[in-house]
């Protein structure tokens, strides 16, 4: 990955390191700062978050951009330059179903990984003055923090993510439809889920969002065991959500499983991208910068 290669210090993005950090706020800040630190030194500067700054008024500048408060304090004319509008509502949808509590050999469960990712995104969005909201769901919406750009709202989101608890079986499509109906203006929705639910419903729900003019980024969070299926010896595979049992010899079924998983991911890739939805499959053993980069990429498109 060019981005990963360009970042010198991925230590602070490593999930194994992140998992050992204390609060969610610390985790988010570590991830984002580390990410930004690397990003500033990378050739992809265009993706950098642009900080609000002031410069002296020059003839021809739009008078509406004059910052009168600064003029009052300094008796000089300054205009706000490069400051983003804060009219973007970002909603982070975090799947907290039982399957997200699965952890194979990785340092974090999928829901922990997703929480850090959600927190990082929220932290990043907050820095961009975007209104950020959080929705936790399994087969229905469990918790909803509406989008807001207030300074204390980030803290509330991080606090909520700190207390995420796995729920029941997942039904991703249902909250997506609910959300599509609830969003009043153009927004950005970030879905963090393992997407092991019925792909038909999921895609339909995401397309519903997209149909309503919402930009969507989908992060599929998978455990390395789900991706590689490294098991050995016959086992009775018990579904953590449905208690369905399949007895199989992993060595005999690995090939077909991996093919099915690849097929599933390819289907998401194809159908979501076809609908203008960004899709990124994440491995809980890998750093979070891919996800953040994807977000920024999508965010940049909205300018």
């Amino acid at each position, binding site marked *: 990955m060019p981005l990963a290669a360009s970042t010198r210090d991925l230590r602070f993005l490593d999930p194994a390191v992140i998992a050992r950090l204390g609060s969610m706020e610390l985790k988010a800040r570590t991830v984002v700062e580390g990410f930004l630190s690397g990003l500033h030194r990378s050739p992809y500067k265009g993706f950098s978050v642009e900080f609000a700054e002031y410069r002296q008024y020059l003839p021809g500048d739009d008078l509406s951009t004059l910052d009168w408060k600064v003029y009052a304090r300094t008796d000089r004319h300054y205009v706000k330059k490069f400051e983003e509008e804060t009219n973007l509502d970002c909603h982070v949808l975090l799947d907290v179903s039982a399957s997200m509590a699965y952890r194979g050999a990785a340092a974090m469960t999928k829901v922990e990984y997703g929480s850090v990712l959600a927190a990082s995104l929220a932290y990043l969005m907050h820095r961009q003055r975007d209104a950020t909201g959080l929705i936790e769901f399994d087969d229905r919406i469990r918790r909803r923090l509406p989008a807001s750009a207030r300074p204390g709202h980030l803290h509330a989101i991080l606090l909520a993510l700190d207390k995420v608890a796995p729920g029941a079986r997942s039904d991703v499509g249902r909250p997506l439809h609910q959300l599509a109906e609830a969003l009043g203006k153009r927004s950005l929705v970030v879905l963090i889920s393992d997407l*092991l639910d019925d792909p038909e419903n999921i895609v339909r729900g995401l397309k519903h969002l997209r149909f309503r003019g919402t930009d969507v980024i989908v992060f599929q969070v998978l455990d390395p065991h789900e991706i590689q299926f490294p098991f050995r010896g016959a086992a009775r595979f018990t579904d953590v959500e449905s208690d369905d049992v399949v007895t199989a010899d992993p060595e005999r079924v690995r090939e*077909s499983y991996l093919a099915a998983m690849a097929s599933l991911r390819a289907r998401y890739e194809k159908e979501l991208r076809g609908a203008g939805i960004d899709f990124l499959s994440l491995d809980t053993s890998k750093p979070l910068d891919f996800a953040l980069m994807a977000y920024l990429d999508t965010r940049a498109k909205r300018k």
Partner: protein
Amino acid sequence: MSFLTPLYLLGGALIALPIVLHLLRRDVAPPLPFTAVNLLRTSAVERSRQHRLRDLILLAARVAALLLLAASFARPYVAGAAPATRTTVIAVDRSYSMSAAGRRDRARMLARQAADAVQRGDRVAVVAFDDRADVLASPGVVADARAAINTIEPGYGATRYAAAFDKAAELLANEEHGRLVIVSDLQRTGFDSTGAVLPEGIELSVRDAGAQVSNLSVSAATLDGTRRVARATIRNSGDEARATDVRMVLEERAPVSKHVSVPANDTLEVTFDAAGDPRRVTVAIDDASGYQADNQRFGIYEARGLPKVLILTGGPASTAGFYLSRALGADGGEGPDFDVRTLSGSAFTAMSESDIRDQSVVALLSTHGLDRRAGDRLRAYLAAGGGLFVAASADVDPTVLSTLLEWQPQLAPRDVRRARILAATDLRHPVFRPFEAVAANFGQVLFDRAWSLDAGAGWRVAAQFTDGSPALIERVQNGGRLMLFASDVDRRWNDFPLHPTFVPFTQEIARYLGARPSVTASYLVGDVPAGTPAVPGFAQVGARTVAVNVDPREASADRLTPVEFQKLVTRTTAGTRARVERLARETEGQQNYWRYGLMLLMATLVVEAFVGSR
């Protein structure tokens, strides 16, 4: 499908083993929580199905292998696979009752009809029977059977269905579904006390060749030598009184006749003067409508004597044998039952061998005066089937006794002087059987002295003292029977002779020891000794002249219907089982399905090995 040794099928229960292992194996895989089970299911199910199919094939192969092994050892065969030819045995009654008017011809006709009725390819055998059954035509074609049937003539024998059934069972031994056709006048007397037993698998058909007849018969002709009277018994089996002339011929004299009327279904005794000490009598009547063979009867004078008992004592001065001789000579109301004689040992030695052989029983109460020659006589007597009774006493020397009878080892009793009581150990023994409920009375006898005997090899204990020592033992020596009583019978060692049980005890011993085949002077046609013509009349059996007569029971007019006949036949599975087993063995031996079973087993094991290695 049947099995020759079905017990081996129990080995098929071993199929439980692979089934249980198969079921247990399902739980071998440990549970493992996972998320993408739906993806796994998609692929795993197919694999799992293949696995399950493979396991099921393996299970089926192993179960089939065990079943085939058990079935092969059980020797399967298909019953009824043999060609279904059937043999019909036609058994025609040839007893003298078939001599009644029209019965022979009707019997032949019915037999021919039965022969003609068999299906093409079936075999027919013809048997003629009365007291015995003879095969006139072995299983074969109908023509041979018809020819044999036409030769059947009534004889002098009596009807015995058992003889016909036995012969039919013999002829149909190799038939699974043979058939027997009985053609007879169906006399009830043909089912004698031995019964008539027919194997289960033989189909029985009954043809009634008889019609009710009114028969007069001479059922007895006897001579009473002491009273000089000849008696004839005339029997009327008809429903009406019949008059007839009874003619009697004594020796070679001129016939004497009496005209008598015999009531319906009754008998009449007719007496004639038999002066001149005749030994043979012939009685005849006229009865053209009834059975011809029973119109004549032959009688012969039989002098009957009492069984002789010889008591050997110590000599003229001895009082031994007093109680025994009195007990055996007791008059039971019709005179004594035994001819008792008491002799000293020396007098016994002087007796001729033939005189000794005439003795039914020899009671040895003393060994005094018995020398080596006496021993030879005693042993010869025993060898001729004689009965010897020995009672212990001071006059009987065990060593001398053992020497006389050549006992090895010699008898070595201990003379025990202790009060004991006799107990009848085995009430089934012929000596004690008549006592039954009163056998306990033996317990009233007090024995002060007795021999303590060692009932070793060859001896059988018939009674014991209450201390367990033998009281009465017996053995068979050289064909003769010998009993040894452990105490005396002269009231010196006990008070037995004073008790009521003494007389019947000694008499039963004498009867038991003296029991021998009777020599008769009269035979029925069906019982004549070998070499004697089986026709009524006088015949010579060795040096004796004997009378041979038809069986008077055959003269009975009591007949059965075919249905009643069928009900009286006893069916047995014993012969059937043996026949079925033999047929099964033969069939199985021809089919050899067990070999195919083993080949299938090998093929199954190959499949199992092939599938199991995948």
